[in-house]
């Protein structure tokens, strides 16, 4: 015991000495922030089941950072993004997060991809007090989990309410089924849809799940057909809707497929061809081909920094996150700490980057541009607008 105490004392002395010695040099209070640089981290899927999203979100974010860095950075600091591949697997996401926080000493986690993967590091980030800024997941948990988590766009729950309202009110469809990824991602929209249906005194006629990275859905297709559902909500990403549609069509079953933002990707059309004609998705930010100065800048930046990647909803998603992050850094000024960054995000009110939609934060609001969405449909092999921007209800899961 005595030895333990004395070694603890020695350690404390050593730390004290280090602090004193370090006092002369210009240091910043936070990890990842130096005189000339701010280092941010992200876990991405670069080689796994949702790699199309991962590779493009990373590129979209870097396009903004490259432009800003070429112009001298923000308040004299260049932005450096360190991204590791978690292959859309929660255990790998945890290892990567520890590496980013403890070894690379990142200032914040920014644009971390995937609901199950980000959920896996949620408590770790809270414990280490590292903000989780604009994670690349729109599960509703990021808007309601307190100080350390900041979302950006309308959640899957909100989007699913829009889907149910559209199906029930406009299409007069009452037989609705849910096909969902069996994890926190799929459940967010699935449960919200259930709650919304209940308000219409309806219920799903079938609830079928699939596992991340599954690619054979013939049994799900059979169950959906048997339920007689006229519409199937696909709480999935881009590989599943084309495959499910194909397998439903193979047994002579042609329901209306409809799903939240993650399916609205050109890859869905590339994989599905004629089987995804008529597929409906929810958009929570403009299409990459829409007009507007911000989208012009996006197209120019992507062409300059990532000429190999065509404009797509995936890289635009990363791009808008990075633009919002740069705006927050601008507002924070030279004295950059985790607290000051979070405060300046809260100061963002009605901020429009130049595409006609506004971000607002403040108080408990961790949603940014939460309330806006619209429907898009695959027509002649292209995502096409179906409606104008709609003010979304804040969808609950109960």
């Amino acid at each position: 015991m005595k030895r333990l105490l004395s070694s603890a004392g020695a350690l404390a002395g050593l730390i004290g000495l280090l602090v004193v010695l370090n006092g002369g040099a210009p240091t910043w209070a936070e990890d990842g922030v130096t005189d000339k640089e701010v280092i941010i981290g992200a876990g991405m899927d670069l080689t796994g089941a949702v790699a199309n999203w991962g590779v493009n979100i990373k590129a979209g974010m870097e396009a903004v950072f490259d432009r800003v860095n070429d112009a001298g950075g923000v308040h004299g600091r260049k932005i450096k993004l360190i991204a590791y591949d978690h292959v859309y697997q929660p255990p790998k996401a945890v290892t990567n997060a520890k590496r980013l926080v403890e070894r690379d000493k990142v200032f914040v986690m920014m644009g971390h991809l995937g609901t199950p993967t980000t959920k896996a590091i949620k408590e770790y980030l809270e414990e280490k007090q590292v903000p989780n800024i604009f994670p690349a997941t729109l599960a509703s948990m990021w808007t309601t989990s307190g100080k350390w988590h900041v979302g950006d766009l309308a959640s899957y729950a909100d989007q699913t309410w829009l889907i149910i309202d559209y199906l029930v009110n406009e299409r007069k469809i009452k037989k609705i089924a849910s096909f969902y990824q069996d994890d926190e991602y799929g459940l967010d929209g699935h449960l919200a849809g259930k709650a919304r249906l209940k308000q219409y005194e309806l219920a799903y006629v079938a609830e079928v799940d699939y596992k991340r990275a599954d690619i054979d859905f013939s049994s799900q297709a059979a169950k959906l057909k048997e339920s007689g559902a006229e519409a199937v909500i696909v709480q999935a990403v881009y590989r599943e809707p084309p495959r499910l549609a194909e397998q439903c069509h193979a047994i002579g079953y042609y329901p209306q497929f409809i799903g939240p933002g993650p399916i609205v990707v050109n890859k869905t059309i590339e994989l599905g061809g004629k089987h995804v004609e008529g597929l409906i998705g929810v958009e929570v930010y403009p299409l990459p081909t829409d007009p507007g100065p911000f989208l012009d800048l996006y197209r120019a930046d992507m062409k300059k920094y990532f000429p190999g990647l065509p404009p797509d909803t995936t890289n635009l998603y990363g791009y808008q996150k990075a633009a919002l992050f740069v705006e927050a850094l601008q507002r924070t000024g030279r004295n950059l700490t985790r607290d000051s960054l979070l405060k300046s995000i809260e100061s963002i009110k009605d901020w429009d980057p130049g595409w006609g939609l506004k971000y607002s934060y403040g108080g408990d609001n961790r949603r940014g541009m939460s309330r806006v969405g619209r429907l898009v449909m695959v027509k002649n092999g292209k995502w096409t607008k179906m409606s104008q921007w709609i003010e979304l209800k804040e969808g609950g899961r109960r």
Partner: protein
Amino acid sequence: MVEILTSQVVSGLATGCVYALIALGFVLIFKATDVVNFAQGEFVMASGFISYTLLIRFELPYWLVFLATIALSGIMGVALERVVVRPIMTAPIFSIVIATIGASIVMRSSAGILYGYDVLPLPTIFSKDPIHWGVLNFTLMDAGVIGSSLVIMVVLYLFFKLTKTGTAMRATAQSQTAARLMGVSVGRIFSLTWAISAGIGGVAGVLIAPIIYLDPNLGFIGVKAFAGAILGGFGSIPGAIVGGMLLGILENLSGYFFNAGIKQVSTYILLILVLVVRPGGLFGAAPIRRV
């Protein structure tokens, strides 16, 4: 109900046929050379990318691509045997197994570096539109996969049964020493076995990639096929075929009667059950342990 069940069985059988082809590749190499080649799944993946390149980048006709892919895949098999396996043939079996796992990682990463990790659609000549035939509900794709697989299996059977080379291969599988004494060039037979196994893997790749999309992780399908081979009795050719087919059907039915979670583990539950009752697998001889 009956219609849906039959459609489940048919589409399961199509996937099962592909498992069976890959399992066949495992078993052929194992029988001839006592090596378990864990890069077998990677032949499937690689041939998917080969046919993608020939079809999309070189715009060759489909039948030519089909044949060229099988040939190129076969050459890849010989190369793997010559470069990776042959030099360490005298090493303990575990070293060889690890070497094939290493080779599979190298192949997967190379595909990732060359083509990226995004999923790609591979065109096919078989239509995915539904066909009704009595209570049968299927697509031309299913029928094409099942038909092509059966043709390959019959051709292989005839090759082993009727040709001199086939007989030499069977002899080598029985006893390398005896075959050598009879004037069979065992080294040449090894190369040929790897070429045939990889070629069958190539057929599986061309058939399955349009169904489950093409990406560098496609080779993991080999794990399921391996389970199919064990189910049938590792080392038995009919076992590999039946085991693979059963697995495909079982997966579909368990997904239909239960949920996605059960579907995922159903393969392994069945595998354990079969091995408890028949340790040698369905068609394998029970292992004899001499005390």
